[in-house]
């Protein structure tokens, strides 16, 4: 099993503290590879996440999925009606009921778009991850955390995090 990188975990209780820390360590070389962990998606943190990671690329998954859905939704009945036309009222075979196909185009747009969105969320969020590192169990309850790889609790980084309001800083292996 792959050994996880050691480092320090700083636990924060307050949203304003974690936002402040996130901003101040974002571009710092001393905190390279750090992770911010939250128990929910506070707007303030999402704003900082957008600054750090840029606009989410999930939107391209949604777009490609939705467009392929529209294409499939029209292509499938068109081909099937071409393959064996159902002649109604003596109308010539080869005349297609395109307005009826909008239903399939729309429904498959939503279906494929939704499936692709989920795929995008998983791929971009690097999930599923069976070997995921649980930084601290409290981070799915009511605490925020900062993980800094490759440093110890005696380091300058640990001192700074304590200064910024960390309740606790401990080393993890």
């Amino acid at each position, binding site marked *: 099993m792959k050994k996880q990188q050691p480092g320090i975990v700083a636990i924060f209780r307050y949203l304003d503290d974690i936002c402040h820390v996130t901003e101040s360590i974002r571009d710092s070389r001393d905190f390279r590879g750090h992770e911010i962990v939250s128990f929910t998606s*506070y707007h303030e943190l999402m704003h900082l*996440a957008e600054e750090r990671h840029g606009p989410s690329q999930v939107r391209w998954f949604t777009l490609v999925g939705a467009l392929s859905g529209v294409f499939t939704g029209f292509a499938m009945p068109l081909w099937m009606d071409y393959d064996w036309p159902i002649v109604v009222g003596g109308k010539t075979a080869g005349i297609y009921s395109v307005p009826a196909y909008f239903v399939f185009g729309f429904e498959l747009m939503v279906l494929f778009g939704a499936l692709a969105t989920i795929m995008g969320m998983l791929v971009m969020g690097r*999930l599923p*991850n069976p070997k995921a590192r*649980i930084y601290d169990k409290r981070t799915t309850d009511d605490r925020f955390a900062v993980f800094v790889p490759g440093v110890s609790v005696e380091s300058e980084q640990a001192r700074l995090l304590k200064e910024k309001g960390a309740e606790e800083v401990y080393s993890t292996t």
Partner: protein
Amino acid sequence: MSDEITWDKTVSDVNDGILAPTGKPHPMYYGALGLSLVCLLIGIVAWSLQIIYGMGLSGLNSPVYWGTYITNFVFWVGIGHAGTLISAILFLFRAKWRNSVNRSAEAMTVFAVITAGMFPLIHVGRVWVAAYWMVPLPNTNQLWVNFRSPLIWDVFAISTYLTVSLLFWYMGLVPDIASMRDRVRGFKRLVFGFMSFGWTGTLRQWHHYEAGYGFLAALATPLVLSVHSIVSWDFAMSVQPGWHTTIFPPYFVAGAILSGCAMVYTLVLPFRTMFRLEGFIRKEHLEALIKLTLLTSTIVFYAYGIEFFVAWYSGNEYEWAIFQKRATGPYAFYFWVMVSCNCFFPLAFWSSKIRNNQVACFIICVLINVGMWFERYNIIISSLVEDFVPGSWGHYEPSLTELAITIGSFGWFFTWLLIFCRFFPFVSMSELKLIMPKPLRSSGVKRQGTGG
């Protein structure tokens, strides 16, 4: 409505307050589960008999070939509508109160649509070949399905709706399952770890999760409106008097949302007691749900009125005759139950006193569900019993088998819902924390605070 609510809980109380009671529910829970299982058993026995002895056990016969089963199908699809409305549309409108009831509404949607999906299978009789009829596969003559038929549109709409609702529901559950994983050990931890995909709550994960959630909501919003519109076309695309009308799509959508909201209230109120969630599902949230129910009830009231007006104003004597018969003929009882339950009783919600009286609201919401079932019954039966040819007129009453299967469908729905609530959080914990007072150093984490 003001989004400001005074909370006596903090974000630190959420996980304990919501997860702890799931392990030890109120005794009422076991009573409800027992009752649901009995109803389910009745349904299973009735359906088994119908499979063995054939469709003669149902009351379906010329001229009524769409009876109670299709009524149930439309009813359950309608129930499923509030889930996505609350999850998607209210999410896009940033109605914060939806965060306390969205999980229950989504679970309700998933189980209601699964229940609905069973009825076409029950209805066709030979269930073992029904799946073959419902997907676009060529038949023995290598003939494809008729893509101009609203019935195949419906198959696509319902399948899409079920899939998207499931995805929405499950994605919402992922951070909460991760919370559950972090509270247990051993095999349970392994299972929850697998189910949560290894979610850790990093900023990167939340960032893409939020973006994806928004896109899912944007895709699901027109889907909510389309699904019941397509269900309404099962009727409106025919030339049957009473069905062939352009008002059907918006009328069906409004009715679906009305029944869905009423069902959410009907479920949330007892479940809130069973799992001791009064501190998280606040009376203000319940009142907001009642206001939404009132809004959709007034739309339905208007639709009933305009439907009558158009039947008269169109000058089509067949259409007008059907509407007169609905109100005064052999099925008048069902019609007036429908009007009373969907239009008149909900008018009580204009009173703030009634809106805040949970027992009264619960009773009215149950009546709305009764009314909405009779609405579908009324639409389907009254149009079919008397068509253009008087010689083919008949009468329809549901048989015992049909009634037993209907009871069974309620048992099936509630059994799954109760099982779900026993093992998973009935309130979305990660989303609830968003509407509670934020843990700010400047304001401190205090017991009293305001939030959405």
